[in-house]
């Protein structure tokens, strides 16, 4: 029974899309992800530069964490979409305008997913084409896009749970670069299930053989993380003070 002039779901999603589009952080993060993906793709494709490691020089394209690092700049888009409104009490204004929280959360999530899906393609594609110039690998591209979407969802959920933008990005990045290496030797099974490690497995560049998952298992693990993160965010968003 939609009354004339009532707020439709599409209006809510549209409003959320305007918020994401008008946030400078969105464009900054997207530009950073695009630039980093493109430069890394070019370097990996031409094999022009090699990186020194403890056991000799490595091809850039084989270093999973380095190749995946632009994804964390991309995740910032979703993180700002989820946690940006908690700054300066903006969310209270939003809630006054749209008091039905489940609907609002669904609209916010839909907008964030739509942006992550659409923005991932321009962010990833040039670098991917540069890296695999002769024959672009479709399954690799799909895996890379899935990683961007699922990591974005994890970041989005964490941002709502933490009510800010610093904690989710710090947790995701530090878990990948500080915590995981400290446990890789002693708890490889557990480490392989962390978001970053399963993302590396999904794009076919696991950090070590011991933390490698098969592609379906990695996709499932990331999907479980994303569902848990968004689910927790939904439960808290509906019940908690703004």
């Amino acid at each position, binding site marked *: 029974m939609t009354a004339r002039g009532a707020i439709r779901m599409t209006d809510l999603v549209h409003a959320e899309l305007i918020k994401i589009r008008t946030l400078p952080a969105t464009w900054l993060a997207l530009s950073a992800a695009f630039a980093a993906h493109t430069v890394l793709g070019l370097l990996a494709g031409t094999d022009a530069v090699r*990186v*020194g*490691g*403890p056991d000799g*020089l490595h091809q850039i394209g084989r*270093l999973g*964490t*380095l190749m995946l690092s632009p994804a964390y700049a991309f995740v910032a888009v979703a993180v700002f979409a989820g946690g940006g409104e908690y*700054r*300066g009490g903006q969310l209270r204004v939003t809630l006054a305008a749209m008091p039905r929280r489940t609907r609002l959360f669904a609209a916010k999530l839909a907008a964030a997913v739509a942006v992550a899906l659409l923005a991932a393609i321009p962010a990833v594609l040039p670098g991917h084409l540069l890296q695999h110039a002769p024959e672009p690998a479709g399954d690799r591209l799909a895996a890379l896009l899935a990683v961007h979407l699922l990591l974005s969802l994890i970041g989005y959920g964490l941002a709502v749970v933490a009510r800010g*933008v*610093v*904690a989710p*990005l*710090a947790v995701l*990045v*530090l878990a990948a*670069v*500080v*915590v995981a*290496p*400290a*446990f890789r030797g*002693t*708890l490889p099974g557990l480490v392989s299930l962390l978001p970053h490690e399963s993302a590396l497995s999904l794009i076919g560049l696991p950090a070590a053989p011991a933390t490698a998952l098969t592609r379906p298992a990695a996709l499932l693990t990331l999907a479980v993380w994303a569902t848990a993160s968004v689910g927790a965010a939904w439960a808290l968003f509906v019940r908690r003070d703004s």
Partner: protein
Amino acid sequence: MTATRTTRARTMRTMRALPAAVHAELIKIVTVPGVWICAAVIVALDVLVLTQQYPRNVEMLASLAADGTVEVAPGERRPSTDAFLFLLVSALQIAPLLPVLGALIAGQEFRTGQIGLSVLAVPRRGLLAAAKALAAGLFLFLVAALLSAVDTVFVQLVVADWEPGLPFTGEAFLWRARFLLFAVSFGLAGFAITVITRSTLAGVIGTVALTMVTMTQLLARVAPAVDALLPYSAARNLMVSADDLTASPGHAVLVLAGWALLAPAVAGVVLARRDAR
């Protein structure tokens, strides 16, 4: 003459006001829940890492040979005392999280314009900056000391039946001093980047980038002299024994001391010069 006396009197007043200002900054630090959550996570991760490594350390002691060496890695033997003294700084693996704590401590002031009120309460900006750096340094020192104590407990558990005095020799305290120097100076680097950029996120990203450059050894081959100036590289040069270090331990001590003094000094100058926003 009068000018000198006035300057000296002002310096004296500042020195007398410093303890109160440091106390105020410490209250700000300990009343932020995020600071305690972050500190608890760091200590918990250290305990977890050491719990996981404990069986390996017991095995290491079991591999003690007649020549006094133990097997630290498959096929690699080192003097047993060196190997166990190095375990006193096991928290090195988790220490890259300390700059996040420094960034959280510094970032609180920039979230809701709090810094304006702080400047109103302590109008002498040099005093405010010094008090902030000292309070942050003190808190970071205490967390680092707690990490060091955790490491000591786990080493003592392993060596109790072999050489119970090992964690309490002069050499052992020298190792702890090295770790504490690194922990405080890296933490203050996170603090300083946050004050300079007025953003906790920038402080976290900046120090993660510093850590990553060291961990991936991006610069170690290309520009070892630059690599040696990074805090985590300096910690490696100071405490890890390997063939591919980029500077001597003495150089590393100077680099870490430089970070601990220069980073807060630059932050202080920036804090004193800019609008209090």
